[in-house]
């Protein structure tokens, strides 16, 4: 069946099967690989997208249930100059190692800054509590977000 998303600011029609998750629809139908097909059971956060303003796990949502939703992926965030400071801060603080989980972290961070432009370190940690990094880069993420917030609020 066909669903319509407001995807990264653009109305997008997608022909999906009922058993597709949102992550699968984005990857298979649009070639968007930012939301990763990783644990696929709602544990690791690598598939995080922002749906209707909330950072959620695209692997645990049926695509057919997203008809009419607004969805943002890391590709859309990366394409906006407004969010360049966040990506720059991630690079500056080297808040990644292998990089596979990073898109999920960045999307969670963006959702946090959307609702809370001046987060504390604890609030940053809490917002990222659903993202897992097997390389163990955790301490750097809050630094990167706090840094980005400073630049963006400047």
């Amino acid at each position, binding site marked *: 069946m066909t669903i319509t998303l407001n995807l990264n600011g653009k109305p997008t029609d997608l022909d999906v099967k*009922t058993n597709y998750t949102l992550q699968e629809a984005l990857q298979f139908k649009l070639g968007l690989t930012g939301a990763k097909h990783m644990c696929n059971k709602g544990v690791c956060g690598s598939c995080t997208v922002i749906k209707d303003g909330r*950072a959620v*796990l695209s692997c645990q*949502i*049926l695509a057919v249930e997203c008809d009419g939703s607004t969805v943002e992926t890391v590709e859309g965030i990366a394409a906006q100059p407004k969010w360049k400071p966040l990506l720059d801060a991630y690079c500056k603080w080297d808040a990644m190692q292998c990089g596979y989980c990073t898109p999920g972290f960045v999307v969670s961070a963006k959702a946090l800054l959307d609702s809370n432009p001046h987060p504390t370190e604890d609030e940053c940690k809490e917002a990222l509590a*659903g993202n897992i990094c097997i390389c163990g880069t955790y301490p750097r993420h809050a630094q990167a977000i706090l840094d980005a917030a400073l630049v963006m609020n400047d």
Partner: protein
Amino acid sequence: MLRSFEHKNAKSVNEAAGVLELGNAALIAGGTDLLGTLKDNILPDYPGTIVNIKTIPGLEYIKEENGTLKIGALTKLADIAASPTVQRKYTALAQAAKAVATPHLRDMGTIGGNIAQLPRCWYFRKSDNRFPCLRKGGTECFAATGENRYHSILGGWKTETSQCTAACPAGTDIPKYLSQIRAGDMDGAAETIMKVNPMPMLTSRVCAHFCQQECNRCQKDEGVQSGATERVVGDYILANADKFYKAPAKETGKTIAIIGAGPAGMSAAFYLRKAGNKVVIYDTKPEAGGMLRYAIPAYRLPKDLVAKFASLLEKMGIEFKLGAKIGDEIKPSDLEKNYDAVLYATGAWKRPVLGFSGEDLAIFGLDFLVEVKNWMDGKVGQEVVVMGGGNVAMDVAVTAKRLGAKKVKLTCLETRDKMPASGEEVARAIEEGIEIDPGWGLSQVVSENGKIVGLEVKRCLSTVDASGRFNPQYDENDKKVLTGENILLATGQGIDLSYLDEKYQIQLNRGRIVTDEDSNETSRPGVFGAGDVVNGPATVIGSVASGHKSANGISRYLGVDYFSYANASNKEYVFFDTEGTKNPIGLKLKELDAAARAVDKEDSMTPELSEGVTEAKRCLNCACYAVNPSDTAPALIALDAKIVTNHRTLAAEELFDVNEPSNTVLGKDEIITEIQIPQPPAGSKSAFTKLALRKSIDFPVVNVAVLVGVEKPRIALNAIAPKPYRSLKAEAVLAGKTIDEATATAAGEAAVADIQPLAATKYKAQIAKTLLKRTLLGTTE
């Protein structure tokens, strides 16, 4: 990737319920539990339809109305956690919602889904239904003796009747009486058995013990030897008979005639007399007991035990009229006139006509058993051929051998693996030197000059036809002669109804009395049937059950109270002995040496009580030992919430259950729509704390929610039992007290007073105790 399914967006609760009602459908809200379950193929069935309820308008809200907080079932946990109202007045719920999983999952998951989520037990969750446990239609709990460090400390919960109980024709609650034996409550164990079987001292010795074959332990070592434990209880009952066979305190004034003093008749008599009825048992034989007295050899069932049991019934006030001429002097029509109800339990004693050449030369095995002593005179040293593959045939063969037959050969239609006799009976026969030569059918008796010299048999190719009906097929070209001077037939028994005179109209079917399935009432009002005369030749325990059913039916017919021992709800926590269950070897009855065995001496000896206790400790008390993993559930219980569904309103405590596979009492088409919480009184405080191995994305090892500063404090813990656990003991400790170090510690102790941890869960008790103490002390800060 998910397997395909049909997807429906419901517009209303009714519409969603309608889809669920059709079956093969699953409901999706946040989807965080469901999609994982489906991706891993955890359950035996995969839904054909998924019905989305997020499209139902008006189920997502948090509002206060008339002193009650109302939360729509689709409200996301993140919104509940962030609600200033919830945080301020219903603190425990806000804290619990905040403790669930991760921020992402809280932004997806709903309160309705959180309380209805499935167990997290790793055996339950193993992909592709690798462990079909009893939450998934199986019969065992793999965690009970497996990896169980996240499991219960308060026992298990049965989803349905255990296998062993289901296999017992009388429905004896075997796990229950074994747990009573373990607890040293022999009187309780006796009552549990006698609830369905008044003669365990007899049945334990002769029963086929279907229960033992169904024991889950059989899959790994030896099944629990419930025959042996029943015998320990049976002999305990005999030794303390005054306690268990009391005359009733009150008489009903009703009179009942029972025809037949066998297991069915005596069983019915016991229950009817217990309830205060006057019971008279008639039997044509000079002694009571029926098949128990006359057909089952004394080496299996000593006759003094049967006589003792009958005398106990007499002491209860049951009258025996033995040597009665039923159908002759005592006519059915007179019985009906003279008694308020009549029960026919006359058994199956008749020799069947098989129709083969020389049949009249052969002896009916049952007659042989009844007349065994006289019959054997002068026949010692001869060869005997027994035809039949059931337990009676084994009795006949062994008895003949013990009486001095030179050689006993036994043959039957069935192949060795299909013989109807129980394994232990066949083993006994083989041990005693009976030659078993299965797979042959009767052809003719071979005689010379009127003297039997053998039995000609023909190869039996199959005993049943394609439709499963008994229809033996033979190879007429494959014959042989089994030599022997005596031929004993144990190929079944017929039912003799000649005592019912022609004018006495009662509905029969293929020579059996037809009775109502629930009451055992015959086509004549007030006339009942029980045992073999109704069901055809079957087991002793089957007759006991049938007699019990008749007693129930007669009570209803007469409008008198039906006697029943106090029936404790079987919905209760059950336990097993974590050490005792490690014992792989079942209790064997001590038996006389083969050389010392005789026809009139019991082969086996009753085990010591201590041996019975050891065996009882081997019972796994098959139940689910997984815990309820919800964080919000204990908060809702502590806050005395109500759960509203499309069908009813439940107290939060009543919502939770242990089903296949659900954690709630919700029906097939039942949907949670709203949570209602009464506003706690001013000055009260509620709080929730959780201990998990990881701060994020983890289920609780233990969590606890409290409501204090009220007249009646409420305390609920979760993840320590199959259902959220409300600790009434801890609440009692705190009632009317100020919370301080001492009272908080005492409450913690009280909360774990009733624990019975599994092998690896004891540590949780310490956590539960400390967590509760800290939570309570936290409310004073």
